[in-house]
């Protein structure tokens, strides 16, 4: 038993220490702090509509639906949706129009947010929706089964409206770890993503990776926006890379 535990520990350590691939080709000028192991930036699920739009040279309309952790107070331009738009424009062919719009639904649970999706989709008609959710549900300790139901319903509406969907889970927030129970919400989002075969951008694991590797000190009590800006910059880069990867945009289509 002991030997097995030890062996598996070694295995796990080995895999955790796997070389941080991919960050290099994420963007030539990516800061070292953004480095991530490649498995956090790839997904088995695909984004066929994004792929078609780019292939056909149609404009790529992306809608980010999120709660307050999708923005930085008083620094909209530095938040991850804005950063993602900049990186995507940089990496896709110059002829490709990329437009990212953001819909903030602060203090709304997944169920409350999903209720607005039909109208929202009629108004915006995006190719890709990135839905960041879970935080408000975790804070309010919503029944995880209800949460899963709400996310399932939201995803179904988004897909029916003709968009590709990426789910984004919670932030890694070490300060509030003893106060907010996050794991059930992470698990349920993973389940919904699996059931609908849509990519899940694992923001939680990514931020924890940065914290554990010492790239960012997420315990920092600093009141200034600097840390938030850097983290969002890296999140935007990672998300852009994730979308490119899941849509299988050929290297030829990238401006490397």
């Amino acid at each position: 038993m002991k030997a097995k535990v030890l062996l598996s520990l070694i295995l796990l350590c080995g895999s955790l220490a796997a070389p941080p691939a991919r960050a290099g080709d994420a963007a030539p000028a990516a800061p070292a702090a953004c480095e991530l192991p490649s498995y956090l930036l790839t997904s088995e699920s695909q984004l066929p509509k994004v792929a078609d739009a780019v292939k056909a040279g149609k404009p790529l309309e992306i809608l980010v639906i999120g709660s307050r952790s999708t923005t930085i107070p008083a620094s909209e331009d530095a938040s991850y949706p804005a950063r993602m738009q900049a990186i995507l424009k940089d990496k896709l062919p110059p002829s490709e129009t990329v437009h990212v719009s953001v819909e903030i639904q602060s203090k709304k649970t997944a169920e409350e947010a999903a209720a607005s999706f039909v109208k929202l989709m009629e108004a915006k008609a995006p190719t890709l929706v990135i839905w960041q959710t879970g935080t408000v549900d975790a804070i309010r300790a919503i029944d995880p089964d209800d949460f899963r139901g709400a996310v399932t319903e939201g995803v179904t509406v988004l897909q029916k409206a003709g968009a590709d969907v990426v789910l984004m889970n919670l932030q890694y927030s070490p300060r509030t770890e003893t106060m907010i129970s996050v794991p059930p919400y992470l698990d349920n989002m993973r389940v919904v993503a699996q059931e609908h075969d849509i990519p899940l951008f694992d923001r939680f694991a990514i931020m924890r990776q940065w914290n554990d590797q010492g790239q960012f000190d997420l315990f920092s009590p600093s009141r200034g926006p600097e840390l938030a800006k850097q983290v969002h910059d890296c999140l935007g880069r990672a998300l852009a890379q994730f979308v490119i990867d899941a849509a299988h945009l050929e290297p030829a289509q990238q401006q490397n």
Partner: protein
Amino acid sequence: MTIADQVTGSTIAGTAGAKAVEAKSAGVKPRAAAPAISLPAIGERELRLDLFRGLALWLIFIDHLPPSLLTWFTIRNYGFSDATEIFIFISGYTAAFVYGRAMLESGIVIATARIMRRVWQIYVAHVFLFTIFLAEISYVATSFENPLYTEEMGIMDFLKQPDVTIVQALLLRFRPVNMDVLPLYIVLMLALPLILWSMKWKPDLTLGLSVALYAVTWEYDLYFSAYPNGFWAFNPLAWQLLFVFGAWCALGGARRMSRILASPVTMWISIAYIVAAFYVTLTWYVPQLSHLMPKRLEQWMYPIDKTDLDVLRFTHFLALAALTVRFLPRDWPGLKSPWLRPLILCGSHSLEIFCLGVFLAFAGHFILAEVSGGAVMHAVISLSGILIMWGVAWVISWYKRVADKSGAKTKIAVSNADMAGGG
């Protein structure tokens, strides 16, 4: 659960308890049967119970700290079940063992009164921990304003309504993270008189009723509601199964299962199941492996529900327990070794050490956040936490020994029983 009923329903609980302890090892080499109506010798503790409960307490402490290298040593990373299962099962076992004997010696009223006294102790401990939680969260609310986490700070909103929140906490309906085990334990202990009374009458039927309640809970989605919304993180209606199963084992079930436990078929099924569970958990941590998991199986299996004690978790615990009983006999000399002494000490004062562990986890978080969050600091905090738990357990033992010496002889029985009282 179709086990040949070798003991008649009229067997006195205490007697069965006496045999049960022996029975755990009897699987390998049957001992001479104890005299029919003898009570278990006072002071003779089942060290394996203390050992594993101590281990569960350490693991719960480590799991409550932020993840670190040490977290990889906790069993939840190697299978479906975790330390909570061990803790609740052993609590059921010891509670039935101790209070079952009390019920036999002094009758149901006295036994119930003693159980209620224990419930009160656990309740007070819970309120104490809640106070510490309030202190911590109030501090963070006023000192932490990182703009990255404005949303997460929404958790502080409940501080705006202390009148409601505190009352709900006293009613066990508002329970912050990491404070779910004690309320579960309080409810289980409240039900203990009924469980024991029923066990004394018909143990197998009681276990059957427990399984039925578990099934009904799953079928009709029964739960305990919580404040401000949602439900208890550990549903007592489901988790009672482990507690009652522990009680059933203590009151003769383990002995009757000894043939099954000793059979190589059981062993190989257990091993196969544990290996399979290990593989599944491995795919959580090494996502590169996850494409080897059939999608069908994933869809059937997930989510593995902790709230309602998923069958996969329960069976995983059973497999672990079966192997433990088989390969770690009761008279294993290692149990007396000084290396395991700290664990056994902690396990024999479980209520105190459990509360201390929750407190130390809070304190550890605080230090990590305020002083530094490095890996070295993390290791220091984990290890010193365990050392503190050991030290305090030692002091409690020492004090009880001294107090017992000066107390009347008749008191020894009572205080020892409380020590083992499944806290």
